[in-house]
């Protein structure tokens, strides 16, 4: 059918949180904190979480989409922490799976800085986006998207 594909990409998100650095960092560094916000949102249900926050430790989050287009699909996030400098920097690699298919493998860098009473956070993610999306449905959607873009380019 189709050959394997790999796309490399990088992006950065800068975000300012109206909370002290220690709190923001704790939301990444503690299981209680991170489980409060990290996941797929309301349409997604966690099934299993493991949080071993130390260099060489893994964070593992397995869940399922309960609603929407991807309903029933199993998601797996598996991260390996490579650098932890408290309240300064966290670096980890992670891979994402969707129903057993490999979607991406990434390097994520989180940089924390106090800005008065607030906290500035910079996330940089560099990754390899893999061919895991290429199922029949994905191909159909891809073709529709393609046509939409073609139409736009012609218009």
């Amino acid at each position, binding site marked *: 059918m189709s050959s394997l594909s790999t*796309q490399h990409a990088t992006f950065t*998100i800068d975000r300012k949180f109206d909370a002290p650095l220690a709190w923001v960092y704790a939301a990444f560094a503690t299981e209680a904190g991170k489980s409060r916000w*990290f996941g797929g949102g309301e349409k997604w249900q966690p099934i299993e979480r493991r949080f071993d926050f130390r260099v060489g430790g893994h964070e593992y989050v397995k869940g399922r989409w309960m609603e929407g287009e991807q309903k029933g699909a199993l998601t797996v996030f598996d991260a390996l922490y490579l650098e932890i400098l408290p309240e300064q920097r966290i670096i980890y690699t992670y891979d994402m799976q969707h129903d057993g298919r490999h979607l991406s493998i990434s390097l994520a860098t989180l940089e924390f800085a106090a800005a008065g009473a607030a906290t500035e956070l910079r996330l940089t993610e560099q990754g390899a986006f893999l061919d895991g999306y290429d199922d029949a449905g994905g191909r159909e959607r891809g073709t529709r998207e393609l046509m939409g873009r073609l139409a736009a380019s012609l218009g």
Partner: protein
Amino acid sequence: MQTDSLSATFSALADPTRRAILARLASGEASVQELAEPFDISLPAVSRHLKVLEHAGLISRGRHAQWRPCRIEAEPLRTAQDWIAERRAAWEQNFDRLASYLAETACASEGEKP
């Protein structure tokens, strides 16, 4: 596939005949003859366009000796941009939840003060 596959994709798309060929293939497989029909150009010219599209990964061709049907491949246009958009959106949603959680924490600690 190299990072610069995007350049190959866009240069292949920068031609109205090739875009028309892709539009035709979006509705199903077709032979070179079928693809050539609507155009006032020679079969070899159509074949050259197909080679460009194939090189860019936008189409694939059957391996039958006589009839090599052309098929559209959407994958190259699911570019790195798509990946960035998806991952970025996921992070933004997570960070929105983090901001709410931090706000709740702030309220809770305010409440604890005498």
